[in-house]
């Protein structure tokens, strides 16, 4: 009896591996809402990886992969949960690339992914709180936790000679988590935080918020907000009243909107966003730009990597079943094995099919630590001549 069971189980596995299927992956991002200008490029990043794998014809005996998009809204947990539920129950996806913002990611993870045993890899949820979320080994992220970004930004500030700073953050999980980590890191490095206060997104007027921060003073204003929401409003009010003329901008504030709105008015301001020198995202960025989206924003490479990790783990496990491949994600992302850069997915599929090992580097030098989050390299940018330019990698 035992033998029979094992044989049938093996048979089922073999059958799964041998027959080519059309695998659907969910892409749940905030196509509407506060980061809607960033998400089309992120979705394109993920879909480029899927196209690459489908074209190679080497995944699980010639399976193809297609994306099903869903809207996380970035801020509305109920809407995101419903959208993710739909992906699983009605579209039958085998893995989820997303969600994007930390709040909705936590909600989708707890309400949909864990109960359904679905693997979820977020390209951009960076709240430190997600490190401790109970995920049954199903949740990963290719973006590093903000605890790390806080340290990096604090180091940049200290090196540039800023002794005191005021912080304003968008009033949600992302903003609060990031502001706290920056404050802690900056204080530990010897800086002084004069004030840390929230701003609500979607207001017409931020002069009162800026007036309070101006009263506290500081060499620089750290704006942990969104580039399509209250962030530019805060900067505008600070510039108009002469309260601050230098700004430190974490990842959510870096986008072309910044250049078009302010140009050289914020000359010399600095920022940090995830990025690494060890990996070259240009293949992905060029392919994304070729689809007609604006590829200058953050998290495009991370999205590519998130989708790639799901598909490579399927190959390593020989199955598209989340329960089977979730355990493989950590293995393929980290050493030992053959390093795989972005655009080399068919090579990786081949190695895995032959039973070899890979160390996925991808577009953003993926290295998963702490039970499934990226270790994180950062790109330091500076506004020069009204343009976002890369200063160095950290």
């Amino acid at each position: 009896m035992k033998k029979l069971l094992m044989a049938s189980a093996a048979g089922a596995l073999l059958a799964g591996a041998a027959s080519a299927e059309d695998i659907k992956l969910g892409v749940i991002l905030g196509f509407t809402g506060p980061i809607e200008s960033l998400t089309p490029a992120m979705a394109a990043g993920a879909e480029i990886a899927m196209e690459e794998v489908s074209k190679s014809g080497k995944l699980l005996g010639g399976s193809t992969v297609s994306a099903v998009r869903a809207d996380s809204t970035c801020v509305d947990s109920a809407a995101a949960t419903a959208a993710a539920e739909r992906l699983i129950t009605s579209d039958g996806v085998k893995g989820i690339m997303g969600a994007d913002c930390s709040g909705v990611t936590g909600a989708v993870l707890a309400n949909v992914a864990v109960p359904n045993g679905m693997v979820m890899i977020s390209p951009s949820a960076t709240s430190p709180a997600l490190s401790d979320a109970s995920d049954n080994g199903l949740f990963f992220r290719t973006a590093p936790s903000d605890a790390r970004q806080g340290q990096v930004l604090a180091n940049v500030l200290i090196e540039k000679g800023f002794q005191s700073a005021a912080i304003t953050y968008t009033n949600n999980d992302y903003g609060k988590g990031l502001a706290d980590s920056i404050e802690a890191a900056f204080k530990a490095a010897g800086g002084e935080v004069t004030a840390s206060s929230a701003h609500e997104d979607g207001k017409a007027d931020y002069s009162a918020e800026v007036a309070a921060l101006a009263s506290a003073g500081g060499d620089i204003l750290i704006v942990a907000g969104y580039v399509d929401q209250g962030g530019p409003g805060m900067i505008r009010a600070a510039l108009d009243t002469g309260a601050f003329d230098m700004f430190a901008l974490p990842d959510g504030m870096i986008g072309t909107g910044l250049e078009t709105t302010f140009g050289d008015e914020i000359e010399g301001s600095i920022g940090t966003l995830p990025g690494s020198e060890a990996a070259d995202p240009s293949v992905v960025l060029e392919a994304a730009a070729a689809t007609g989206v604006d590829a200058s924003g953050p998290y495009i490479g991370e999205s590519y990597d998130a989708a790639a990790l799901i598909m490579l783990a399927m190959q390593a496990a020989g199955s598209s079943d989340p329960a089977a491949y979730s355990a493989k994600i950590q293995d393929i992302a980290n050493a030992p094995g053959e390093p795989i850069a972005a655009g080399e997915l068919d090579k990786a599929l081949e190695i895995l099919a032959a039973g070899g090992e890979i160390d996925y580097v991808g577009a953003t030098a993926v290295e998963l630590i702490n039970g499934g989050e990226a270790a994180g390299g950062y790109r330091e940018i500076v506004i020069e001549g009204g343009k976002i330019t890369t200063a160095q990698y950290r």
Partner: protein
Amino acid sequence: MDFLNAIVALSNFVLIPAIAYGSQLALGALGVTLIYGILRFSNFAHGDTMAFGAMIAVGVTYLLQYWGVSFGPLPTALLALPFAILGTMALVLITDRVVYRFYRTQKAKPVILVIVSMGVMFIMNGLVRFIIGPNDRKFADGERFIISVREFKQMTGLREGLAIKTTQGITVVVAVIAVVLLFWFLNRTRTGKSMRAYSDNEDLALLSGINPERVVMYTWLIVAALATTAGVLYGLDKTFKPFVYFQLLLPIFASAIVGGLGSPIGAIAGGFVIAFSEVTITYAWKKVLKYMLPEQLEPSGLVQLLSTDYKFAVSFVILIVVLLFKPTGLFKGKSV
């Protein structure tokens, strides 16, 4: 020197923004108070009337910019303002014809009209978002500053800077012109006098041969002009965003009620009372006090009474206090 710095910081962050905001609220509250005085109901659709007017102004401004028409250093939106006022007048007259007149001829109770105006509010709200979308629209152009922080610092050599935005200057000037025109109209013209008579005592006014439909029509026309001006000035000074006008309803109603509903002077006073309370209570006084106080007394905290998140709570509290202790408002309006 420290004293001057304190004054400048206070002007830059409190006085100037509050004066501009107060003017915008006053114009909005004038519209509310006129409707309350003459048509005898609280018009909840007022915020969205402002949004509608501002929306037309945004559209016409874009069109003028496209044609290459500009107003020199002043914002093009001022040229668009008359068109916006005409458009809004058409809208409110149609609304009155289609909706309010039905209830007026039935002599419906004010509370029914309030509910009706809420319905109108939702429809206008949807209309505006349907036409222009829910997003931010920037339509200010021309010179940004009358005096910028950098120029001021160079001129005076003070540590603190002072900025006066062109839009803030325009707001105050336009508001003064609008108020002067309104008071001249109400006090000196026949139609204005008949409106006041109708407001004071409807039956007596009717007996003395005043045509009520005419009074109602003029009221709507004036309200449309005021609402559009307020909406355009607010949008110019801050940014145009449909939902924000809906949120403005609370401070506008608070202004009208604090001043005394039905009293135009009260509406203006109320606007400034609310604006100054909101700004001063949520302002962090540390900077000003640091200049004014001797070193030993310097505050270490921010000296902020309420976080800026509670800005709307300020108008709410004032509203409740006034309703409890002086329901007729500062200028003896009608009790609510």
